[in-house]
């Protein structure tokens, strides 16, 4: 069937297909930008030209793909490195029991193409880091539905770095969503223009980390016993064999080991499910919250792609535990954001502080969040985590005072494997 009514018809479109969406695309509303060109031009762009990338084909990704397909995006790409697990089926609605074990990106793409005629979804089963700037440059928009902070930081930094002032096409709007239980957030990032993902890192909930001495000597909570089993007992008993948190037998071993310890210390509450939750850092997830956040991301994508209405500036946060509470606000850009700010981060430390102490400070800093930082100045290496030879060569510096190595006002460059960019610290002493 070929549509008669919408100018730039493509096969698969039938008369009336876009009845609902065209009410928006055929006329301006009171809050529509005057530049909006209602009618065929915008429809042609949306349906024949726009190319959009979805990162993640999980809880948010499944919803995002379905929404984009229904709103008229025809050229959609999706990246996901995971395979389908049975625990995904309570919300990742493009997957069935028979799909368990298959790659999410591929199953999701096939489902969408089967259900929504005329849409092409191109899957990539792998990591976002496998792709280079040329790859990301081909899209008009990128929507991210990820549960990994590290992957988000990577794509954020990559898109900020891609911006070339001479080439407006190099600025790729990034729409990011995330959920936890009944709560979630969606935001629009215009790299270099609005606040970026890195600018807001300090808004993340700090992960509960239990001090090793509590785990080893004075457990009080069931979680302490579970951490003991996974952090201390597993390597002691199994040596080099890697723990696989997706292997039920491994979880069972951890559960039994933790239970024994709990019994010994009269601690109640170790269960199989808690064990799994603690070692995998499981975040509760339900279909409805994912639907809200994915819809909000796709709605922003639709508005940006069509200019049919103003888009979110720039952060939407929803809390559904106590009524329906939401908060829409403009998250401010950080001048010292290591990704989009350009300014070095000021850090004032004691002139007595050893390099080791500075590393501890960095690891604890909520707005930086790095695990194993390497430090250097413009002309010398202070401490490098790898390779082993350089680690050994720089290790003696750990006990030296920072002030012996860096003059007041001097800059230290921090790098880490988890950090997709390098961070400049401007050091002053107290």
């Amino acid at each position, binding site marked *: 069937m070929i549509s008669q009514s919408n100018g730039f018809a493509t096969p698969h479109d*039938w008369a009336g297909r876009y009845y609902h969406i065209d009410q928006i695309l055929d006329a301006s509303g009171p809050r529509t930008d005057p530049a909006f060109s209602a009618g065929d031009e915008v429809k042609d762009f949306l349906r024949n030209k726009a190319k959009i990338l979805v990162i993640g084909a999980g809880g948010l990704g499944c919803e995002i793909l379905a929404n984009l397909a229904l709103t008229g995006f025809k050229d959609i790409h999706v990246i996901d490195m995971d395979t389908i697990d049975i625990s995904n089926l309570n919300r990742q609605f493009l997957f069935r029991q028979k799909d368990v074990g298959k790659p999410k990106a591929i199953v999701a793409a096939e489902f969408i193409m089967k259900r929504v005629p005329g849409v092409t979804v191109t899957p990539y089963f792998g990591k976002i880091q496998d792709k280079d700037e040329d790859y990301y440059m081909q899209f008009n928009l990128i929507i991210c539905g990820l549960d990994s902070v590290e992957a988000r930081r990577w794509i954020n930094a990559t898109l900020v770095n891609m911006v070339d002032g001479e080439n407006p096409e190099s600025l790729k709007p990034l729409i990011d969503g995330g959920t936890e239980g009944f709560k979630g957030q969606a935001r629009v990032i215009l790299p270099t223009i609005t606040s970026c993902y890195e600018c807001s890192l300090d808004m993340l909930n700090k992960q509960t980390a239990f001090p090793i001495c509590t785990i080893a000597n004075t457990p009080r909570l069931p979680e302490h016993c579970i951490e003991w089993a996974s952090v201390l007992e597993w390597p002691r008993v199994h040596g080099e064999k890697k723990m696989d948190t997706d292997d039920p037998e491994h979880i069972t071993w951890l559960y039994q080991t933790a239970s024994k310890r709990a019994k010994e210390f009269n601690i109640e509450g170790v269960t199989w499910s808690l064990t799994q939750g603690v070692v995998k850092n499981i975040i509760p997830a339900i279909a409805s919250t994912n639907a809200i956040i994915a819809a909000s991301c796709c709605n922003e994508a639709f508005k940006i792609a069509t200019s049919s209405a103003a888009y979110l500036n720039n952060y939407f946060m929803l809390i559904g535990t106590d009524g329906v509470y939401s908060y829409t606000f403009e998250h401010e850009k950080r001048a010292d954001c290591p990704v989009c700010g350009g300014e070095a981060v000021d850090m004032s430390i004691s002139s007595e502080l050893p390099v080791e102490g500075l590393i501890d400070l960095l690891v604890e800093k909520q707005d930086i969040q790095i695990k194993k930082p390497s430090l250097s100045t413009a002309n010398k290496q202070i401490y490098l985590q790898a390779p082993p030879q350089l680690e050994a060569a720089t290790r003696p510096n750990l006990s030296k005072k920072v002030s012996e190595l860096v003059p007041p006002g001097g800059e230290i460059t921090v790098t880490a494997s988890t950090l997709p960019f390098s961070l400049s610290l401007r050091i002053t002493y107290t």
Partner: protein
Amino acid sequence: MINSSDVQTAIVADGAVPDNKTRRYDRQLRLWATSGQAAIEQARILVLSSSATSTSILKNLVLPGISHFTILDHSLVTPEDAGNNFFLEGPESIGKYRAQEAVRLLAELNEEVEGRADTRNFREFLLNGENNGVREWLSGYTIVIVHNLDKDLLETLSNILWHDDSFPPLVVVRSAGFLADFSIQFHEHTVIESHIETSPSLRIDNAFPALKEYALSLDLDNMDITDHGHIPYVVLLVRALEDWKKEHNNLQPKTYAEKQSFKSLVSSMKRKLDEENFEEAESQAYRCWTSSSVPSEIVSLFSDSRLSAPSASLPAFASFASLPPFFQLLKALQIFTERNGYLPLTSTLPDMRSSTEEYVRLQNLYKRRAEEEKAEVKNILIDELGGKVDDSMLDDFVKNTHRLKVLKGRKWGAFVHSNGGQLIASALETSPKQAATHLGLSALEDVLFKKGYSSLHGKAPAPQITIEELTEAAKATLPPGVTLPETEWNEVAGELMRAPTADLPNTAALLGGLVAQEVIKMITKQYVPVDGCCVVDLIETWTGII
């Protein structure tokens, strides 16, 4: 004495890898546990129409595993329907019963869920309901949901369901383009497990005897220095507070200066500079002057008329056991608090710097006392009041008394119509955007109805609506002298005019999520459902409550 092989068997028995169903629902069980899941698995949902919004809502209820859903819709799939609804198969579904297609594709999401398409003409069915058992039929559902239902049918349906407070709640969802609202019609909704993030009182200001005795028994100056660094802050504060009161006419620190000097007192009890438990005690010192008296939100629940029978007649309270269990418990709680001045103790302790032994000892003190107070509540309930409530509900209730919730609902339409429209008039002043959007959707409903346009079927061409028609309809519902906020109204009306019958995929999906969250909260009686009408604007991306 259990020997180690017994322990091993016990562990293996309840430590077996969870079954497939538990694994499938794992991520939601972590929110509402097996009790919430059991409620979901008994829920029967009725939805009128199978619009994109309706199927989006159902998707998010079928996935978590409701028992049954019925779609009541006699319409056939139009080409317009086939374009915006993920639970239709594009052109292949055109001309088929919309309900049947939607049920087939929704049921695929979860084999445990039963779906039924009812293709009776519900206009006839509802309007002639008195004769054909519509009430009985409706009362077989847990919740009824409607999307963009014709005005006259909506009024009929809401009247039927409001008639008896045992009838299911009605969720009314309306949307046009980027604008939407929804509300739930219910008489009353009580919540024990509200999951509200307030922690129960540790009652440090009013320590129970065993705790006080323990705190006073410690020889802080002469005990082993390692043990000294392992006393939980709760014990330290109770002790410090007793010491303080001895010096201050048995009064607690009140003024800022007193509070500061209390903190110094705590700090001076250190025997080594780096005793972290004392540092923790200092930072938690505010708990000594946070009163453990009954929070006002809980006291206000006691004013419910069902609780106010004269106390003299209480033992003979003939109908007490016929009160809903929640209110029997609430009465018992009221009596408990009147006698004691505080809520029953809960045994959940936060983590704190301490040795295992000291922490477990403290935990046991709290646990024993909590059991005693629970027994007192139970005693009041059963022996004094003649109540009858099952033990697991009593347990949950006593654990959650600091965050109980009672919501009083209202009938659909009451917001705009009751008090001669005063409610909407004041909302227009305080939240003009939200109120204008709500009023606009009501006006649109009116105008579409008058034009004879049924919103049940998306069919081209879209009706032509003018801003004057909408304004006239809106003004008709306002009390004399109340005016529409000009800017906000024009923004709303202009947008409704632009897309009067657009069920946009993104708006549908977003409503699908929001409404399903609320339905889950209603069904599980966990978390707190929306109190009022939730308004959604997807141009500026906000939600609000009026």
